């Protein structure tokens, strides 16, 4: 590390200290942003100090949970892990996390780096570090105004993977045709996870499916089993391409929901790749606590509130499936349209809200409360949408605090209110529920 880089780390640490001390923010992005201004390649010298190596986790849904699981397993092995736990997953967030774990002289006190990486930032991050493993979870349509089309992201990834060091292992979701296609295209070693348990299959096809056409020949893909969205045991009748052989087909998930099963498979396969024995993995994940906002539980006046971050159609459908399986009585939907949520809320029409039975009370809130109200209105066969009527089963409440209260009023003691918020709405709701800022 050069003297200039040492100075950069010191400045970064000062920025981090200032922003935390004066409560300007969690210090999750600014220290990195400023460090990158002085030393654009600072991550190279910071990352090269990690003797174990770096693991990157990317994909539309499940990054935060998967990277937290991998970190948990490695820490259980006695390793020190640097991790961007606040979900700041651009280059500046990763640099901030490293600076946070570094001494004033720029020495990192950690063996491993486990970082979740934003879909668009993966090529940029790969330019700066040589990871031991790249975990690719899935690609779903998400914030078209910010990310562009899923095919475009897959193309960017394909290009970026061409320049990755040859001892990098790809950990890939075989059940996502777009992701497993990347494994077939890349020259890197690839390991695949996926599911074989057909009892987990989706009862009906969701509308928001993205990649149901063969990437090799363009024909419509067939599925032996669809688990959700376009994720399943796929094959092509026309050219014979099919889901690759699975290196890990099952594992007991510490969290409910099919999504978390996939996150678990990804983490376990990664840990196995680095020689962690199976019984250690099981031990490490026992009692795994979800990341903030992801199936996180709060108890308010004897009633349970459970938060399911839901930021795109595939994520929302997965949350709904889990919530409805829990026989929920009331669901609160919170829709914001700020930068982290995406300014365009059109995607709510791709979520299968029709699956919510008329008997379940729905409360809608957030910046775009009326967009969500319109969406739910069109799921109901009758046309009663009184703003405050018990009968209609739909409550429209722009104020998030009041909406939470209204939701709590709808459930009895010992019952659970399920809240499905977009990202910034989740942060707001957490602030209300915990009475403080996140992390």
């Amino acid at each position, binding site marked *: 590390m050069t003297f200039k880089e040492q100075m950069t780390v010191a400045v970064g640490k000062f920025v981090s200290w200032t922003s935390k001390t004066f409560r300007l923010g969690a210090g999750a992005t600014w220290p990195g942003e400023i460090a990158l201004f002085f030393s654009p390649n600072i991550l190279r010298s910071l990352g090269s100090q990690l003797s174990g190596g770096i693991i990157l986790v990317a994909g539309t849904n499940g990054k935060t949970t998967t990277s937290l699981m991998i970190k948990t397993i490695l820490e259980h092995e006695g390793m020190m892990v640097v991790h961007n736990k606040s979900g700041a997953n651009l280059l500046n967030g990763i640099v901030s996390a490293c600076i946070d774990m570094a001494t004033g002289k720029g020495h990192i006190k950690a063996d491993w780096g486990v970082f979740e990486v934003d879909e668009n930032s993966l090529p940029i991050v790969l330019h700066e570090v040589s990871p031991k493993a790249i975990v690719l979870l899935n690609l779903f*349509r998400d914030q*078209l*105004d910010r990310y562009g*089309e*899923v*095919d475009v992201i897959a193309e960017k990834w394909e290009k970026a993977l061409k320049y990755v060091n040859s001892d990098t292992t790809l950990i890939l979701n075989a059940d996502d045709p777009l992701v497993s296609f990347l494994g077939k295209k890349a020259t890197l070693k690839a390991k695949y996870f996926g599911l074989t348990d057909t009892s987990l299959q989706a009862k009906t096809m969701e*509308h928001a*499916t993205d990649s*149901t*056409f063969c990437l090799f020949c*363009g024909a*419509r893909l067939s599925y032996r089993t669809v688990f959700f969205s376009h994720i399943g045991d796929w094959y092509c009748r026309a050219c014979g391409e099919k889901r690759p052989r699975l290196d890990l087909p099952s594992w007991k998930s510490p969290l409910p929901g099919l999504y978390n099963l996939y996150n678990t498979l990804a983490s376990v396969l990664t840990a196995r790749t680095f020689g962690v024995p199976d019984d250690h993995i099981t031990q490490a994940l026992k009692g795994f606590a979800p990341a903030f906002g992801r199936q996180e539980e709060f108890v308010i006046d004897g009633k349970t509130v459970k938060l399911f971050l839901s930021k795109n159609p595939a994520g929302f459908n997965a949350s709904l499936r889990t919530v409805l399986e829990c026989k929920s009585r009331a669901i609160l939907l919170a829709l914001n349209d700020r930068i982290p949520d995406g*300014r*365009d*809320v*059109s*995607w*709510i*029409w*791709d979520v299968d809200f029709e699956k919510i039975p008329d008997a379940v009370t729905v409360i809608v809130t957030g910046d*775009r409360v*009326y*967009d969500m*109200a*319109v*969406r739910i*209105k*069109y799921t109901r*066969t009758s*046309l009663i*949408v009184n703003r405050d009527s018990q009968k209609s089963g739909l409550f*429209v409440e722009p104020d998030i605090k009041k909406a939470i209260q209204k939701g709590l009023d709808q459930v009895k003691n010992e019952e659970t209110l399920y809240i499905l918020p977009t990202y910034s709405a989740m942060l707001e709701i957490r602030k209300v529920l915990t009475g403080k800022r996140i992390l």
Partner: protein
Amino acid sequence: MNYRLNIAWLYPDLMSTYGDRGNVMVLARRSAWRGVDANIVPITLETPPKKLRSCDLIFMGGAQDRQQKLASEDFLGNKAPLVKEMVEKNVPALFVCAAYQFAGHYYRPYHGEDIPGAGIFDLVTIHPGDQAKRLIGNVVAKIINIPELTGIKIVGFENHGGRTTLGPKMLPLARVIKGYGNNSEDRLEGAVYKNSIGSYFHGPLLPKNPQIADFLIKKALEVTYQKTVELPALDDSVEIEAQKFIIHKVGA
């Protein structure tokens, strides 16, 4: 109302990128709430074109590049001629975003050859090059060429690189108040031809603009049943609030 209404939905599995199906849901639900027996008829690669003949209203939405290529051959070869014939016979159709471009004569990319369109609408779309910015954002416009709806504000979200110019057979749908519209230069948005409409308001155009949905339903019934139809009013208060939010947000 003792009517039937078949709504053709072109390529629901290929041309439905970002909430496009909201349009079909709104058409079907608003018909059903008035007692019209509305059916959604999915028309995709494997569907025989003649199925379109049983339809009274046509919808086609946005697509990603790869998916549009897959749909393109089948549409231009098998289905577009019939859709064109129906549009000429006053059957209402709604083309949104990529489908709006596709309904024109051609799309001229920055590199490479022109991509032929269906020629249903007299318009062309040109991509001005890598350096030109994509037209993205909330948009508010005022309808100017549907007599029943002239003067009402419509709201939506646009996200397109191509710039569309209308030919002499087309009328612009609306005048842009905030946002970009067809090409960001002439301040016009969308197009009207007979009873059909094209728009860059992508995905769910109709949920927040129920007036256009009702216009399409009314025209579809009138053409099919050959008589004047008056649709009973519905309570659109939440739609109006959603509209107002965007108008207020962009300061239009």
